[in-house]
């Protein structure tokens, strides 16, 4: 999440903004330039300065419009906090060592008051154990849309991250048929479709996959010509880092590339992309995705440890260019409007810088939907 963020999504308001900051029992009030809030680091320094706690590690939180206590710990959520604050930005500061992480979160409106009282009275005994939400820097993505710029607009490439076994992937596939445009005209071809999403499963919770989406690729390998069982085996074999390219049954939420917003830095030039698409290598070779390299060995009844690689691999997962959007609802202060509307995703992709080594994997030309 270290990329430069587009400014001023909510910068319609003008002038300064009042900030009310609370640390322990002390309050400080100051003001910020709403249009130029600066960086989080500067803001953090400012808070330490106004509260006169220069060498104390603190957690910064703010109350958003719903009254939820949300953390501020990077530029993104800082800007979000500034842009949504109306009229006052209320800041709550806790010492890191005595921080009550459970205070953060969106929970429900009913709990809203408790959230605040918890912060106000840290010694308040909680009746129910809360779900511990770790700090955003500890967050890991559970799903993402990737390679938006190199795929046809009708396609979507979704990456599902499976950590351990806590949450099932939770979907089913089936045989079906779809219509393609080929040099010989329209042709009906067998295809693989998502047939069911398990409630509460990873696939459903991302909102990126839906029933009747046609599966086109699994981790870069086209599924056309493969049987349902083959595709099942491929998906299970890749289940720890599954990248599925689908043609969504609902084409209304597609990324619309031409109507991108302007003004962001490092924006890719889509026009040129089409030209360079053909000769470059695919963006991800299956060999690259070695997240399942963590086989475990137990030596002489000792402790389990991960098996190291004998040959250091220079390529790593992180070298892949991708947009990772966290859709676990409400975490990180980044609130998707809902599962259906993917507008933020669309605009976000356009701000992406793309390494030249991206490639369109689709070769079967135009694809029409009935």
């Amino acid at each position: 999440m270290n990329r430069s963020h587009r400014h001023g999504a909510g910068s319609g308001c003008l002038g300064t903004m009042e900030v009310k900051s609370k640390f322990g029992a002390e309050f400080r009030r100051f003001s910020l330039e709403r249009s130029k809030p600066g960086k989080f680091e500067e803001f953090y320094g400012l808070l330490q300065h106004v509260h006169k706690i220069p060498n104390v590690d603190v957690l910064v939180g703010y109350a958003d419009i719903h009254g939820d206590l949300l953390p501020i710990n990077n530029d993104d959520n800082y800007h979000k906090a500034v842009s949504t604050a109306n009229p006052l930005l209320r800041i709550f500061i806790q010492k890191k060592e005595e921080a009550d992480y459970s205070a953060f979160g969106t929970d429900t409106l009913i709990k809203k008051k408790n959230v605040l009282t918890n912060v106000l009275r840290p010694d308040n005994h909680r009746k129910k154990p809360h779900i511990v939400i770790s700090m955003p820097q500890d967050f890991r993505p559970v799903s993402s849309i990737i390679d938006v710029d190199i795929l046809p607009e009708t396609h979507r490439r979704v990456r599902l991250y499976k950590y351990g076994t806590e949450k099932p992937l939770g979907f089913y596939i089936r045989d079906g048929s779809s219509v393609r445009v080929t040099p010989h005209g329209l042709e009906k071809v067998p295809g693989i479709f998502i047939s069911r999403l398990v409630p509460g499963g990873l696939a459903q919770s991302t909102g990126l996959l839906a029933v009747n989406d046609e599966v086109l690729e699994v981790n870069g390998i086209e599924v056309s010509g493969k049987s349902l069982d083959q595709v099942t085996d491929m998906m299970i074999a890749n289940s720890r880092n599954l990248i599925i390219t689908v043609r969504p049954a609902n084409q209304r939420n597609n990324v619309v590339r031409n109507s991108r917003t302007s003004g962001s830095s490092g924006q890719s030039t889509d026009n040129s992309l089409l030209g360079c698409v053909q000769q470059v290598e695919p963006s991800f070779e299956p060999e690259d995705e070695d997240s399942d390299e963590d086989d475990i060995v137990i030596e002489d009844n000792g402790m389990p440890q991960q098996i190291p690689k004998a040959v250091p691999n220079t390529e790593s997962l992180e070298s892949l260019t991708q947009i990772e959007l966290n859709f676990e609802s409400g975490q990180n202060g980044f609130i998707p409007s809902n599962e259906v509307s993917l507008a933020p995703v669309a605009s976000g992709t356009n701000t992406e810088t793309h390494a030249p080594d991206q490639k369109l994997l689709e070769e079967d030309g135009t694809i029409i939907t009935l």
Partner: protein
Amino acid sequence: MRRFLRSGHDPARERLKRDLFQFNKTVEHGFPHQPSALGYSQSLRILAIGTRSGAVKLYGAPGVEFMGLHRETNAVVQIHFLPGQCQLVTLLDDNSLHLWSLKVKGGVSELQEDGSFTLRGPPGAAPSATQITVVLPHSSRELLYLGTESGNVFVVQLPAFRTLEDRTISSDAVLQQVESSQPGGGQSRAVCRLPEEARQRRVFEMVEALQEHPRNPDQVLIGYSRGLIVIWDLRASRVLCHFLSSQQLESVCWQRDGHVIVSCHSDGSYCQWPVSGDAPQPEPLRSCMPYGPFPCKAITKIFWLTTKQGLPFTIFQGGMPRASYGDRHCISVIHDGQQTAFDFTSRVIDFTVLTEADPAAAFDDPCALVVLAEEELVVIDLQAAGWPPVQPPYLASLHCSAITCSHHVSNIPLKLWERIVAAGSQQHTHFSTMEWPIDGGTSLAPAPPQRDLLLTGHEDGTVRFWDASGVCLRLLYKLSTVRVFLTDTDPSDSLNVQGEDEWPPLRKVGSFDPYSDDPRLGIQKIFLCKYSGYLAVAGTAGQVLVLELNDEEAEHSVAQVEADLLQDQEGYRWKGHERLCARPGPVRFEPGFQPFVLVQCQPPAVVTSLALHSEWRLVAFGTSHGFGLFDHQQRRQVFVKCTLHPSDQLALEGPLSRVKSLKKSLRQSFRRIRRSRVSSRKRRPAGPSGENGEAGAPAQARPRPLQGQEGAARPERAGVQSMELAPVQRRIEARSAEDSFTGFVRTLYFADTYLRDSSRHCPSLWAGTNGGTVYAFALRVPPAERRMDEPVRAEQAKEIQLMHRAPVVGILVLDGHNVPLPEPLEVAHDLSKSPDMQGGHQLLVVSEEQFKVFTLPKVSAKLKLKLTALEGSRVRRVSVAHFGSCRAEDYGEHHLAVLTNLGDVQVVSLPLLKPQVRYSCIRREDVSGIASCVFTKYGQGFYLISPSEFERFSLSTKWLVEPRCLVDSAETKSHSRPRNGSGPEKALDRTRNSGSQSDGEERRPGRVMEHALLNDERVLKEIQSTLEGDRGSYGDWRSQRVAVGYSLSNGGAE
């Protein structure tokens, strides 16, 4: 195109690959599935068998084999060789005739179809008018007489199949002549009334018999089903004489001199008729009902054969007393006061008698009776006293008892080979000493370069040892493990003891016996050490036997040990079968492999893996619960390890409860299909407004012109289309540690390697489970001099958990030169270089999804090939094979031969794990074929194409066992004997193959339902294992290849 192949594209390597690898299906071993016709050529001395799937197979002298496949998959109903020629005519059940010929090309004979023909009647005639019932190839070699259901006999000229309409012998003409030839009154009036009646009711019915006069080619005999037999003069087109029987005619035999006719009838009787020109309507010489007087079944075929001694042989099929023996499949032989009814365990398809071949000879002098039964070929020596059976050198019924596993051992040392052969010869004493009488053609195949054994384990607890060195798969020796156990039936009772005065004089013949006394006796794993002669076999009820080859009969007791694999796991209840009861006290064992140790796993689940180390005298075994190591020298258990996951309840249930769940799941899938059919029918009137899949369906139903190569894909698509009726869903979920059967031990491997530190190597045992876990135990085996004094010790040294958790199907250690470690005792026998113990060893773990190389002793991941992620295929079989180059005599490489669940065979290189070649070998739906596959150490393989047949294939350019043979007829004798090379017909054969190869992929819409079920591989496997009996419905006839020569230089990879 798969990406990983692109990277290493190196022309030199590509060339080398062509020298090393080549895929061929070479020969089919065993007995043809569902035979339907038998033919024999006296002049060629070649036997032909046709099958219900349209194959025709020819067999002559051992090694002389041909296979042809009709384009239609219709059953072959009749096979007739053209007299004195290398040609044969087949009649299929679609009433088409096909002419085949054996042509010599480049020195070897090939079976080719020359043409086909369907008899057409006049326009508007009933189809039965031209339905062929009998075929008579005339000795003129250019005419075929075709008897039909209408009673007409049509004449067709060969080889062009031109109908000679003016020569047709119509039933009307025959009838007219028969009437006119009546003397007109007198004593024959009573008989001649019948034909008149007959004409009214069209009772001529069909032609049942057509025979040429043995001496005079101008006369043929025509027998009609209602009992009229006429002798027809072809020149004068007139009836010479006729015979009228009151019974329905089944078949006719014309004696060698032409003076007597023998007819057999539906009431179980047969009649002899004198043939003489002056009495146009003779009375029978003799009429007899051999198994009367009570009602008998029909005698369907009869032979009346003369001998020099004077007393004839009467051989006939059927005729048994209807009430008491009507269900028997019998052929009776009567000669010189002796009468035997050979009783077959399966239906008799047809039979023939081998006689004096020279047509001019005065007597038939039958030498052998050849009977084609549904499940086996039985040949009986008619010259030796007691008429003993002859052991066939081929066409072995592999499935006498269903095959449950197989194991191949290459390059058997001569000593062991001789001992096995000697042990086997003592079991074959009941066979006749007669030379194999069907000895046509010459095998030109070079003598097999080495002795190979194929061991098959069977459901009845036997292990059969087959000579798999050459084209003929021959039974060497049969080992039975039944004696070790107490079973309901005593094995000695199974011998058919027949009383003296028994009538009818039944005698059981043949070896096909599909009934197993006790399914627990079934053999599941076999491991033979070819150097020491130690054999380990393991079975369905957790029994593990260690056997030793002994040339003498011996009586001793078998040491029994129980291996408790659950150990201290509490609260489990085994719901499966009980373990077998061992026979207490000493047991008498015949010469051969004699068991001396019996380990019984507890719970008595089926043994799923087995390894034997003859040098260390250790045997390792695994089940779904764990694995154990047994020291068979000290007869002591070394250790057991429970691999069961605590949550895995399924593994504790026995096979019985799994059958139940299978039934349930089958029922559910049927219900699902039915339900979805109903719903789609309901939805149809609403128009194509359904969801994605449904909407497109009507469009597909309309015919659309085929466009180019899409034509080939259409049937498949159609299959997918109709499958939408029953959408099969697949759940996508990562494997978890809690899955069922994760503890199932899939593979066991002994290795002397660096397990703990890089300075000291030690014996080790490796085990891989279904859940992707690899256990490694360091072993301490005492030196030879103290081997009996000190115990073998084992200590767990490593446990590797593969995160993808796919079943581990193979474990292998590569030495410092990346060469797989040799087999035990291989080095001691100077048959292998000793392994390199200097460089670092590497561990190769093959799971169903990935190949992974780790370093040793510190386990770190080095290389991998993710097969499933790339191709969606999973590893079913993996084995190290040595591939010799066809160019350089001494060049060869070790690689992995791999069979996937899609039926592809691949070669994956060692140690770099680069895919080398891939060929499609078995249809992916043929789960039993895939499950039965075994690889040899030199790049060949076997798999079952039916319960009774192994297909042999080769991935190697160097090791190729296939028939090369020559059949000479009188005319082709002048052809010069060939030299070796035979390039051109290879290409020819290819074209034939390519014509038919595509139907491997093809799926007819009618089979979609079957396909939908077959698709669920697990369900199918369950069906296979539980309903073992009829698993043969997917014979793989894709390989049409006929005897083909190969030239060593022609090593093109496909």
